[in-house]
């Protein structure tokens, strides 16, 4: 069994729609830097210019279908993580965004019901281990799609680099 860390987050939800693309998450004009804080300061700005200032730390980003579609830029999950968002909950994720989020250790959860049931400003609690999402404002709870064991191991190792590093050191 993989080692499990206790990870419970609680905070307000910022709600967005379907097909939130990587150009909206972090416009390409800012991709001339690797600095997570600088990227975070432009996160979501073309759709919600005040977003980086509104996030105080620990909030959730809740969205509809196909979150993170478009480019492969890892700057997108990095910007979200550095903005202070604790976890992204969406009906579905675009595939490159999904693997990037796992690889860099940005918690994500897939649940059509939660994404539909959570409104902007609702207070949400998430238990990453059990996959339970609770809307504290409405009292409703939801179960997220569990990660396959293989991905859970990457998440638990703290990202792909840490997981591969472990593997490489075993080989020596």
């Amino acid at each position: 069994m993989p080692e499990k860390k206790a990870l419970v987050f609680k905070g307000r939800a910022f709600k967005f729609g379907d097909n939130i693309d990587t150009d909206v998450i972090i416009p390409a004009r800012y991709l001339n830097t690797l600095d997570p804080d600088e990227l975070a300061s432009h996160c979501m700005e073309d759709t919600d210019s005040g977003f980086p200032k509104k996030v105080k730390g620990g909030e959730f980003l809740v969205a509809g279908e196909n979150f993170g579609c478009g480019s492969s830029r890892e700057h997108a999950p990095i910007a979200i993580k550095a903005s202070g968002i604790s976890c992204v909950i969406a009906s579905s994720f675009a595939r490159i965004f999904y693997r990037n989020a796992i690889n860099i250790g940005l918690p994500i959860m897939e649940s059509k019901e939660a994404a539909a049931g959570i409104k902007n400003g609702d207070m949400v609690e998430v238990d990453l281990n059990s996959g339970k999402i609770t809307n504290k404002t409405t009292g409703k709870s939801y179960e997220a799609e569990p990660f396959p064991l293989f991905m859970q191991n990457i998440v638990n190792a703290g990202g792909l680099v840490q997981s591969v590093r472990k593997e490489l050191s075993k080989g020596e």
Partner: protein
Amino acid sequence: MTVTEKILAVHAGLEEAKPGQLVQAHCDMMLANDITAPIAIQEFYKLGVDRVYDSGRIALVPDHFTPNKDIKSAQQAQYVREFARKMGLLNYFEVGEMGIEHALLPEKGLVLPGDLVIGADSHTCTYGALGAFSTGVGSTDLACGMATGRAWFKVPESLKFTIKGKLRKWVSGKDLILRIIGDIGVDGARYMAMEFAGEGIKNLSMDSRFTIANMAIEAGAKNGIFPVDDLTLSYVKKSMQEGRRKDPYTIYSSDPEANYKQVYEYILDDLQPQVAFPHLPENTKNISEAGEIHVDQVVIGSCTNGRLEDLEIAAKILGGKKVHKGVRTLVFPATQNIYLEALKKGYIEALVEAGAAVSTPTCGPCLGGHMGILAQGERAVSTTNRNFVGRMGHKESEVYLASPAVAAASAIAGKIISPEKVMG
């Protein structure tokens, strides 16, 4: 098994691969650019290794913000260049020899049929035109790939697109893929393979096939893939002449009893030029239904449509005519070689005489990086691949996606128009 399942199975050392299965597979080629490589390099160093697994199987192409648009981009490009030198990478392409990565790698013979390729760029799916499995990944995936030669994959389900017939005049692969995305939506193939098949494929040029595979990602697909035929083989024979890849390649094809999540049929003869309206590639309309859309800028180029055939059609339409007064018409040949060929064939001369500005290869305008940014309220018709909010500049600008033929005709008319109307 489908061709995608076969290639994944072979590269994972397995007899069989089934949709949903997670596999660790060996990669034949890996790619990153000046935007994605810096993060990959940073993460690579965190792995505690000091050399790449194979210096011949990593291609680094500074194409996005090059020739560098500002100091920060120059710093990033320098970081990539120094890494390439330090690791002795054989396939680093400097400005002057480079091109837009997805036109460059096939042209240089770096991707072969049956390959498994990952690239830290979403349009890596382009190489499916050669019968390879190729897919976009993030920088961290690439970092681990550069160290180990492997990556993890979930074997995708496949959608089959059976293509019949022949394209009409002024209609190209771009129109087919825009129509497909319009039909199935920007997540219609999410996490799946888009496999193209059918007797109509022989009537599609290699350049059209690259355009179609290139935009598989715009339907959310993991990869797009074509069967290998005589046209593919003659392309590969030519591209391998530089000798960058000497290993033998294998041609895979889907079994007759392979499983598909869904099968679609497209008849090329029925297709008319398409335009994807803002702000999603799925907002596709027949050009006859486009209405009066005046444009400020026309962009012809990119990894989607910057190949020789694209420049040829643009030159044919614009040759002997003038671009509409006030319409900024920008042409970007995708590689140095394409540029040179277009020059020799007189396409560049025709375009410049018509009033188009021709640039060195860069991804610049496609992603709103540089060389053609839109101001507030401006509109462009572009042969690129995305029309998201703010993609080419100001968040209140608009991008309409179309083929090079439609873009060239629109440059003359100053509004989105069918090439038929300009050419008679």
